[in-house]
Structure formats: C-alpha cells, structure tokens
C-alpha cells in the first residue's frame, strides 16, 4: 500500500511542477462549453435543457485529452520497466496512475462544472447534482481512459485512436451521469440514476486495473 501512495504522490508532484498541463485541460473544458451557447443561441430554456449533456460531454472530452500522456512519459523514460520489475502488483500501479489522473482532472472538472452551469441558467439544486454526478462518474472515465491509454501505448496516432477506443466504452457513464441531472430537473428519480452511475464506476474500478496491467505488460515486452 505504501507503494501505491508513493506512486500517487510522485505523479501529483510531477503535475505540481508543471501546473500548465492541468490548466490547459481545464481551460479546454471552459472554452468548449462556452462554444455551445454561441453555436446554439442564447435562449435560456434551451440552454438549461441541454446544460447537463453539454457539460458531461465536455468533461468527457477534457478527461480524454489529458490521457494520452498518462503512461507515455513513463514508457519513454523507463519508469514503466521499473514498475514491471517491481515486487508489487502492476494492477496496483495502474490503479495508482488512474487515481492520480482523477485527482488532477476529474476532481477539478467536477468542482468547476457548477460555475459553468450557472452560465447555462441551472438552479442551485441542479448545480449541486451536476457536481455530485461528475464526482461519482469521472473516476470511471479516468479508469476506462487509462485502459485506452495503455492499449495505445507506442501506437501511431495514439491520441485519436485513444478517443476512438474510449468513447464507446464511456457511453453508459455519460448516459447515467447526464441522465441523473436530467432526472432531478424533470422530477425523475435522481437517486436511482446516481446509484447506477456509482455501480458503473465500481465495476470499472474492479475490472479495468487488470486489463490495464495486461496491456502494460504487452507494451513492456
């Protein structure tokens, strides 16, 4: 477990030394969501209607944008070889990398989203629900995206390929994430949606580290 904490701390320290990488992802999130009112028109009830879907999609794209470097730097400088040789499970290392990725992208995205929601004219209760769904759902995005990043490690055009692999697998998370916010706004069952979303995140937590570790072993061979 100390290895897990050390790896998370290392990744956070690396990000801390180059905060620009995280800032770019958050700036992308803000700019991308701003484009929708500009493209669709400033009509308040239309914007409130599409806000949850737009913010969720933008968060999904922002999370994917930051993923192609998740294992690539370790792959290039030899850290990955050391992780493969280390006496503790590679699955745990994969989980630690995704955990660190979530702390520097999923968490800030979830905290930022309510402020953008205000610009879409969402009610205070809906804003909280939006933040809650993103907090619960973004770990699944980090894990699924981490798998896509591990599979495309060393591939040609890995960025576009990563998105092609991860997006279909992220569809359930997107449906229940924005569906939960939608349910709250239209008087549906918010709790049920949030519970399914949490279940999806837990399934991803229980399964993807094994697949990521298998992919990393193939890359290391």
């Amino acid at each position, binding site marked *: 477990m100390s290895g897990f904490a050390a790896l998370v701390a290392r990744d956070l320290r690396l990000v801390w030394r180059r905060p620009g990488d995280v800032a770019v992802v958050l700036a992308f999130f803000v700019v991308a969501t701003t484009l929708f009112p500009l493209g669709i028109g400033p009509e308040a009830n239309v914007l409130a209607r599409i806000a949850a879907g737009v913010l969720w999609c933008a968060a999904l794209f922002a999370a994917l944008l930051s993923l192609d470097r998740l294992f690539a730097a370790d792959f290039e400088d030899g850290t990955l070889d050391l992780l493969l040789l280390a006496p503790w499970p590679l699955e745990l290392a994969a989980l630690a990398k995704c955990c660190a990725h979530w702390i520097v992208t999923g968490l800030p995205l979830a905290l930022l989203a309510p402020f953008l929601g205000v610009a879409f004219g969402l009610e205070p209760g809906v804003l909280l629900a939006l933040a809650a769904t993103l907090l619960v759902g973004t770990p699944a995005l980090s894990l699924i995206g981490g*798998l896509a990043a591990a*599979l*495309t490690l*060393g*591939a*040609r*055009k*890995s960025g576009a*390929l990563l998105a*092609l*692999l991860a*997006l*279909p*697998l992220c*569809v*359930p998370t997107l*449906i*229940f994430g924005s*569906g939960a916010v939608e349910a709250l706004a239209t008087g549906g069952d918010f709790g049920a949606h949030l519970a399914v979303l949490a279940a*999806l995140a837990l*399934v991803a937590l229980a*399964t*993807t580290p094994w*697949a990521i570790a*298998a*992919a990393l072993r*193939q*890359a290391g*061979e």
Partner: protein
Amino acid sequence: MADLHFLANPARFRRFSQRVLPSLAFATVLMLAVGLYMALIQSPPDYQQGDTVRIMFVHVPSAWLAMAGYALLAGLGASLLIWRHPLAALMARASAPVGAGFCAVCLLTGALWGRPMWGAYWVWDARLTSMLLLFFLYLGHIALSRAYDEPERGDRAAAILALVGVINLPIIKFSVDWWNTLHQPASVARLGGPSIHPSILIPLLWMAATLFLLFVLLVLLRTDTEIDRRRLENAELQA
C-alpha cells in the same frame, strides 16, 4: 478443444482451409441463389409493410452475424492471450472487418427500411444506437490491431480490447435501452415460439444460414491471405 488446438498451427490450418474452401464457396453461392429466390419472389409481401419486409431477410441475419462476429473476436482474443495461438491473431485480424461489414449492412438496410416505415432514415432508438456503438467497437478493434509497427503488438492489444468490449457490450446495451426505446421487440427468439408466419420465417432462417456460410467463407479466405502476408513479411525480413 483438442480439435481446435489441432487447427492452431497455421500450416495445418492452411491445408484444412484449402480442402474446405472450394466446396464451401459452391455451397454458399447455391444457397444464396435459392435464398434470394425465396426471399424476393416466393415469399408473400407483408400485409402492413408490403414489399419492404424483404429487406428483413438481409437485415436480421446481418445483425445476428455482427453480434456473433464480436463474440468470435473475443473468443479469438482469449485464445491468443491464454494459449498464444499464432492463428488466433491472424483470424481475429481477418474477421474484424467482416464483422464490421455485416454491422454496416445491418445499419444501412435498417435505414432503408426505416425511411418508408418510420418516416426517417435514422431515429435515436435503443437498438439502433447500440448497433451503432457495436460498429464503433469494431472500428476501434480494426484501428488498434493495425496501429503498431510490429503486428504482434497490435494483435495482443486488440485481443485485450475485444475482451473488454465483450464484457461492456451488455452494459452498453442495458444503458441504451434505459435511455430510449422505440424499436419493435425481438420476435424470433422468445418464449412461446416465434410470432412470425412460416411463409416469412423459413426464408429468413434460410438466409441466416446462407449469410452464416458467407461469413465463414470470408473469414477463412481472409485468414489464408493473412497467413500468406505474414509469411511474405517474414521472408522479406530474412532476405
């Protein structure tokens, strides 16, 4: 299993496929001719759908084969990762575009049927959407297996993707169902027997068998080609 392992040797598989392919091709063409006669001429038009019902004779088997094809990819992926069968990688590489092709045929014929029946080429209905997502999974598999300079690496990455995809397909299907549903419910495989009249059911099953043979034929042919291509590449490396 012992018999399947017997065919895992590419040279042995090549001898097997060379022996089987001519008669398989002949049988496919023959069954297709009979099947098209049954589907397009002999079977009666539907009382509601008219002649557009004939699209179903291609559409429904294509949907079945698209799904079965992904299951085949997952099985081949597992066999590559567990036993490291060299043939499994070549066959997966050969069969992914065939499965994607049947998936595309299913989507296209569905659109052609939807226009006169529902008034739109495409609606965001649950079954259409999950078929489209299956098509995207196929595209990801094809792109990933061809994205590396060393083909073996692409084969193994794609094998992991196929296994993850086959676990995720029911989850995707469930969430899309939850999201929206308008498509008519399944009417062939359900409790209490099929609800389709035999005059339409028999040509449908015949076409399903025909297209299954076509699927097998294409996969065997393309696997042969992959074996030859891999041999050529190795020969070039040695030369």
